[in-house]
């Protein structure tokens, strides 16, 4: 094999790919070479000198060019004159490496002794103590005694904040630059560096705000000493007291694998759990630091029932009984259709499945939705499932030949860890294309970037579709694409020139993008909230690019929809939507969408609303009026949200840390989280509340079904009764049983079970001593890797092109600006409740304007402006930033004090801006 190299390490032969460094080759045969600065995820630098080894290569006769042989016929090995750093030395054929002998040991002892000269040895009060590579390597390789005087140590002021979240103890730092390199190479936020030289060398962060990165917590994981500690975990616990419980992050659609590290029923810290198919070994700071909602004293603890106009504590029996009786009454008098249900994308699959069963089967209501019903609701996304990333795709393996197109998305804010993974594909040789209305951080790593005018997205897509469309060979191939003919007319006038004129994009770049798309071996397309909000023609256009590039259902290809919420895909898969049942099955009678339910409520046609894990009133306070007209409002929540405050009955639920369940991430990987914490109050999991109600309600249903028997033939009667029994079978003892039911009734999920979600164990499990490379006790994955459900297009059959239209937004003259709602990672979501550490990072309620635009309006930072659309007006203070494109005002989504819902319209919102008086 030309691409492989065989070498000998301490007498043991090992074959590894060309280009491997000696440390990695040794690691493969479990020969541990000690390292500090080397990290398998980053380029080697050879800074710490801990990995010194003896290296020799076969001696080559200069005359003949042949390897010299000794008398036994073995190659003569010529040792290099000095020790080499094993982390920077690439292997070569016939290389001989000695990692254990007196000379190497002498060097290792010397390096450790030198590193410890300025180390304070304050392990008893150091958070890293117990999982510290410096401790471990000193025990294993260090000298027992130091020749340096203890009182000669260099001292610095004890920890100084590098930013809000991370503290630096300069005495402990061994200057390995792992943190600096992580920020540069992996996070792409070059906010750490070295100041000064020699003994006063130290890590600094001078960004504004300091250590401005959404991935900063990872530096504390990879720090091989106790120099970097997190503000959240400092002095909270000794690591050997912690019990890590596998969980899945509930904050965004990436679904990072994590552990809750528990001590005495409290979450002490959150650590990443390695899963190369999802998050490698990284998590973002929101996932790591925003766990405090779990232990927040503001959590709801008991059911609340409205009595005399006030919510008052009640027993579960009382609250359940009340809701069951009232729902039964409404079902009897007004029918199931007078009941509406909203269940949010942060609920587990098991809850969502139970929710739609409860509505469709028990109550007989088709009215369910996973959106809050405000003007900001996104269209329901089917393409992410139909054309989704095909099962078995591992983004970590993709590189050369892969084209990643990111359209209308800001992964840094919407799904941070995807940013790292997309960047890594580009680093491995993939082609990254970003197409957005504004600059995003991902642009920095992209080979091609286009910035379109908002409203002209479809113009760009048409220009991208056209060459792919024309390239589809006639006859058979065209017939195999349903809807092929329909696109002909739409694309007839499409051209790059037109896109340049109408969307303001760069022509030559568009040309290069089209070439890249046409020659892609694998094609992965990410799209986010801005693409979704721009309308289904945009997402359909992206789906059509995939299909016409003949990558729909192809390996290592597909769409990834960044729909907000940890389980947004799960909610759509489970059929928590008015138009489709579980597994995207067709419904005879579609129900009302969330906003239609509120319209009906306003008109007095909605008798009951059941809201789980959503807070529509917070997003749109005008919905409060609608809720007041509903006879029965039931809310299942963690907190007494604005919506819960208006409810008739509030059920307190268990958080992700206190129960079991599964989430389905944006790549459609179903992943399991475990119970880490005993409930401290009598809250219940969402599914169990629904089951209790369903049981009470369905006793009636069976009686009704058997009462009808006399009117029907026996066969019909038996079927009706069977169906009724199935409908009324609510005997789930655990979420695992609900998942079995899901697997039985949703074809997509037929291979999913709690056991299968753990089946890949061991793939990335740690070998003995691997902690030295990866640090401490973190990362080990004992909780399973989850399992991806197949995309619709994988089933074969005829592929469909989706209806796609080119629309150009025409700006009304009286409203010459465009308002764009921008998502932020740190918004005012209830899941950030109690995590005060992140407060300084939260998006501020400001309107971002390009400085040129602000100048033209005579606006300074902080000036208050009125932003008026056709629907309403909004007042915000101005922030001048080059990140805002000209002609656009960027307004943050889900931030308190920004009533976006009062102004946004479908598609692009045209607004007038003027300085607000007073």
């Amino acid at each position: 094999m030309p691409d492989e190299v065989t070498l000998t390490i301490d007498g043991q032969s090992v074959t590894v790919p060309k280009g491997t460094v000696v440390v990695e080759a040794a690691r493969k045969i479990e020969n541990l070479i000690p390292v500090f600065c080397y990290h398998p995820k980053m380029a080697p630098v050879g800074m710490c000198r801990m990995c010194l080894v003896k290296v020799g290569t076969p001696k080559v006769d200069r005359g003949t060019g042949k390897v010299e042989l000794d008398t036994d016929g073995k190659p003569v090995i010529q040792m290099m004159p000095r020790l080499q750093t094993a982390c920077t030395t690439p292997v070569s054929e016939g290389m001989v490496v000695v990692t254990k002998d007196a000379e190497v040991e002498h060097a290792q002892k010397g390096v450790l002794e030198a590193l410890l000269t300025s180390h304070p040895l304050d392990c008893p009060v150091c958070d890293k103590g117990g999982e510290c590579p410096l401790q471990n390597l000193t025990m294993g390789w260090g000298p027992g005694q130091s020749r340096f005087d203890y009182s000669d140590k260099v001292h610095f002021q004890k920890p100084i904040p590098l930013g809000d979240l991370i503290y630096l103890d300069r005495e402990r730092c061994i200057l390995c630059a792992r943190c600096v390199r992580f920020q540069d190479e992996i996070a792409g936020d070059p906010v750490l560096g070295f100041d000064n030289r020699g003994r006063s060398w130290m890590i600094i962060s001078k960004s504004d705000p300091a250590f401005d990165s959404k991935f900063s917590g990872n530096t504390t994981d990879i720090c091989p000493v106790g120099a970097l500690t997190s503000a959240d975990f400092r002095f909270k616990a000794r690591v050997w007291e912690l019990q890590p419980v596998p969980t899945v992050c509930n904050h965004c659609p990436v679904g990072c694998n994590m552990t809750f590290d528990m001590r005495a029923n409290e979450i002490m810290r959150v650590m990443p759990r390695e899963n190369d198919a999802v998050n490698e070994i990284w998590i973002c700071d929101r996932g790591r630091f925003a766990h405090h909602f779990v232990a927040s004293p503001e959590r709801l603890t008991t059911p609340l029932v409205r009595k005399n106009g006030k919510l008052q504590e009640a027993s579960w029996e009382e609250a359940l009984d009340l809701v069951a009786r009232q729902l039964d009454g409404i079902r009897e008098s007004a029918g199931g259709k007078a009941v509406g249900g909203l269940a949010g994308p942060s609920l587990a699959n098991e809850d969502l499945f139970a929710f739609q069963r409860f509505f469709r089967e028990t109550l007989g209501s088709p009215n369910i939705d996973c959106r809050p019903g405000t003007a900001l609701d996104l269209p329901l996304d089917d393409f992410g499932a139909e054309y989704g990333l095909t099962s078995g795709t591992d983004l970590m393996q993709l590189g050369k030949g892969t084209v990643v197109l990111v359209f209308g998305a800001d992964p840094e804010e919407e799904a941070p860890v995807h940013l790292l993974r997309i960047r890594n594909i580009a680093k491995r040789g993939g082609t990254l294309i970003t197409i957005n209305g504004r600059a995003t951080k991902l642009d920095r790593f992209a080979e091609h970037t286009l910035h379109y005018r908002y409203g002209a997205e479809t113009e760009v897509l048409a220009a991208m579709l056209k060459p792919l469309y024309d390239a589809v060979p006639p006859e058979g191939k065209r017939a195999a694409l349903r809807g092929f003919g329909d696109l002909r007319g739409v694309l007839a006038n499409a051209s790059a020139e037109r896109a340049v004129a109408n969307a303001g994009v760069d022509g030559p770049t568009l040309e290069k993008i089209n070439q890249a798309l046409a020659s892609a071996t694998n094609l992965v397309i990410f799209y986010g909230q801005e693409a979704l909000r721009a309308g289904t023609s945009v997402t359909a256009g992206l789906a059509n690019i995939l299909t016409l590039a003949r990558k729909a259902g192809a390996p290592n290809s597909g769409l990834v929809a960044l729909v907000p919420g940890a389980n947004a895909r799960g909610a759509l898969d489970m059929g928590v939507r008015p138009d489709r049942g579980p597994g995207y099955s067709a419904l005879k009678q579609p129900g009302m969408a969330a906003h239609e339910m509120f319209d009906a409520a306003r008109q007095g046609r909605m008798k009951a609303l059941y809201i789980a894990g959503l807070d529509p009133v917070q997003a749109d306070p005008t919905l409060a009026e609608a809720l007041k007209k509903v006879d029965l409002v039931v809310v299942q929540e963690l907190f007494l949200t604005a919506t819960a405050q208006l409810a008739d009955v509030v059920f307190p639920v268990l958080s992700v840390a206190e129960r079991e369940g599964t989430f389905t991430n944006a790549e459609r990987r179903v992943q399991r989280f475990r119970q880490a914490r005993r409930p401290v109050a009598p809250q219940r999991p969402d599914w169990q509340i629904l089951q209790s109600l369903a049981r009470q309600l369905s006793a009636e249903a069976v009686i009704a079904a058997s009462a009808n028997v006399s009117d029907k033939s026996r066969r019909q009667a038996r079927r009706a009764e069977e169906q009724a029994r199935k409908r009324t079978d609510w005997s789930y003892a655990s979420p695992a049983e609900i998942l079995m039911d899901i697997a039985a009734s949703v074809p997509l999920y037929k291979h999913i079970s709690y056991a299968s979600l753990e089946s890949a164990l061991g793939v990335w499990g740690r070998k003995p001593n691997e902690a030295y490379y990866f640090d401490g006790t973190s990362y080990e994955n004992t909780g399973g890797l989850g399992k991806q459900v197949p995309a619709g297009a994988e089933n074969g059959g005829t592929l469909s092109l989706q209806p796609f239209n080119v629309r150009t937004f025409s700006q009304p003259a009286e409203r010459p600006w465009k308002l764009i709602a921008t998502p932020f990672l740190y918004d005012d979501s209830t899941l950030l409740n109690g995590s005060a550490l992140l407060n300084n990072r939260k998006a501020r309620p400001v309107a971002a304007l390009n400085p040129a635009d602000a100048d033209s309006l005579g606006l300074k930072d902080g000036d208050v402006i009125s932003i008026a659309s056709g629907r309403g007006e909004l007042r915000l203070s101005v922030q001048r930033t080059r990140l805002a494109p000209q002609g656009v005002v960027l307004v943050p989504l889900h931030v308190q004090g920004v009533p976006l819902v009062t102004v946004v319209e479908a598609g692009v919102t045209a607004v007038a801006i003027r300085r607000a008086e007073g």
Partner: protein
Amino acid sequence: MLYEKYRDEIDAILARYPSKRSALLPVLYIAQDAYGRLDDASIREVAEILDLPYTDVFEVVGFYTLFYNEDVGKFVLDVCDDVPCCFCGAEELVADLEQRLKVKAGYTTDDKMFTLRRVKCIAACDQAPVLQANLEFHYKVTPDKVPALLEDLRRKVESGAQISISGRFAEH
């Protein structure tokens, strides 16, 4: 604002390099001369001119000892007190300078003319003792040469010649 004031010079420097990053040192020289030192605000200003991350510029400033974070005189007098210079009378030279300038090493004269510093080897051991005045080297400086040297430097300042603590004009 630095860029507005030195636009031509900065543009000329930027034009010399294919990437803005390469222009960092010469632009820092301008900033240090303009402000008399490189404090946080001036370092950030340079970073913005060159579109560099703030931290990167702080790293460079921190690395080089000829960037000063506090005010210095028109001339910074660096006297080497490493071993070879000491053998040849560096200590006597420092003592003499301290006495004549009426400041201790590490300080600036009241008239803001000179800053006296002790430094380690500046790579001219064969001509010890060595004194560096901004970027000018003065070799075999014995106390008897000091009055003329100081007078010469003063005259330069008074003559209105371009003086740069960064050695910005040294290459011309």
